[in-house]
């Protein structure tokens, strides 16, 4: 069904002009909502829908259709910058690309250092340990690295705690909460191996 016919039906359902500006559209909508709730809802579109499925069409669906479709007709125009503003934006854009490149390179170097240290250690273990590489062979075994904690390998789920940005001073349920949600816990020092 062609887009404009849907818009037409919707516009008719909500008694709003086809080219609404934002301000009066919001106003229209509010009146639209209130009117639909009070007056009987007997326009041709809904009668067709009703005949199709018998039940009164769910008003929320029409609202969702409106909120999905309406903003796309009010998409803001592309930006038009003045000469100075354009040069400032260009400078910021170039600096951001440069900054991302530097951060990426720093991370790469960090990983390379760790990799080279690990390579040197394993090489020393293979050659310099003096037990004919027995310790090296035992160290190179990858048993269980790719399995899952349930089967005794992989990565324990508590390891994947992830970074947050802030630590709280009371639990998530606030000071009034009981049980676990009450105490804020940054580091579980009282953990004991049961």
């Amino acid at each position, binding site marked *: 069904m062609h887009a404009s016919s849907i818009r037409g039906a919707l516009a008719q359902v909500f008694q709003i002009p086809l080219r609404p500006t934002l301000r009066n559209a919001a106003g229209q909508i509010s009146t639209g909502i209130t009117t639909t709730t009070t007056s009987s809802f007997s326009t041709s579109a809904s009668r067709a829908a009703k005949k199709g499925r018998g039940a009164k069409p769910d008003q929320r669906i029409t609202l969702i259709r409106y909120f999905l479709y309406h903003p796309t007709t009010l998409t803001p125009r592309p930006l038009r910058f003045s000469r100075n503003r354009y040069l400032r934006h260009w400078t910021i854009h170039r600096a951001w690309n440069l900054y991302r490149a530097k951060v990426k390179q720093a991370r790469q170097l960090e990983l390379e250092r*760790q*990799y080279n240290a690990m390579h040197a250690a394993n090489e020393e273990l293979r050659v310099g340990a003096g037990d004919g590489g027995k310790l090296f062979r035992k160290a190179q075994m990858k048993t269980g690295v790719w399995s899952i904690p349930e089967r005794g390998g*992989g*990565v324990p789920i508590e390891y994947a705690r*992830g970074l947050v940005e802030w630590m709280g001073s009371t639990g998530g349920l606030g000071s009034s909460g009981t049980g676990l949600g009450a105490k804020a816990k940054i580091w579980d020092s009282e953990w004991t191996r049961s």
Partner: protein
Amino acid sequence: MAESHLSLRLARTWRSFVKPSICNRCLQTRRTLASQASAPQGQRDAELEEASSLGGAPDAGSGSPVRDFDPLKVPRSRKRQLVPSRYQFRSPKYYRGPLHPHQPPPPSDPASREFVPGPFSTPRLEQTYHNIIAPDFMTMCYQHTPPGFRAPQKGARLRPWIGDSPYFRNRPLRGPRGGDVLRLLRKPITFRNIPMIERVTVHSFVKGALSGGSGYIHVAGMALQAITNHRVMTHEARTNEANWGIIKGKTVSMTVDLKGEDMYHFLGKLINVVLPRIKDWNGVRATTGDNSGNLTFGLDPESVATFPEIETNYDAYPGKMIPGLHITIHTTATCDKDARLLLQQVGIPFYGKVVD
């Protein structure tokens, strides 16, 4: 072969790290060079831009005009409007090929119609990956090859046709033994190819659309848009399937491809808030995965309703129309076990039989 090249290069870089062999000839030149470089600071290079704004020349004292600079003061104080501008360049609405005189500006240009403002925040999951997950993944999957070690030659994967029949000569090669599915090769993990999460595809097949009209599609589209901060892309049925009631050309499913910042925010929200709320859920089946590093798991409509975005105005969505989802996480790993290990580090629990 690849491993040997890699190990040779690694050996060289490693050796240059551990014992940078600088012969004395370079040493003393480096010393003279340092002194030389500082000397001719005065003589500016004719080839470079003298009046460069980045010249770092100390700004001439932030005089009064700069400190109390207020961009709105002058436009508000104007009594009459400026003369209308005669500049008419508009970004063209259609792209008519590379030789058309009216060319569209590149998408990174703010005046372009396709300009999308850049990232708005550094997602916490991205920082978790770079600070914690990448080094540990590299450590876990490190396979030591001594310097100068050449891996034993592996046979070619595509087998030639061997036989006396004359037709075998230029015939295209056969598939590998046991089926002709050529799986991705798994290169040893080094600091250059640590797998990372590349993109996330959220897919939802809207069964109600087949019988119940476009209401189901719109509600599912609104729900997906609320969850993923992206508008959905709908797909029409390609063929007619009578027993499933699929009609050609009717919209049946919708997907959202998440990359970059939106992807990290979606995953962070999914892992931290939504997955723990699924009733008696013991993780993702460990047999998931398509042997190329992409893992998929599904969410039923009840758990989709526990997303914070849908929970806030849950009554605005007709109850039965909230869709179930398939979430596919594409990683740059080339086999399932690496992808699963990466997702365990990110925080997704797995259970059941393990398939590599």
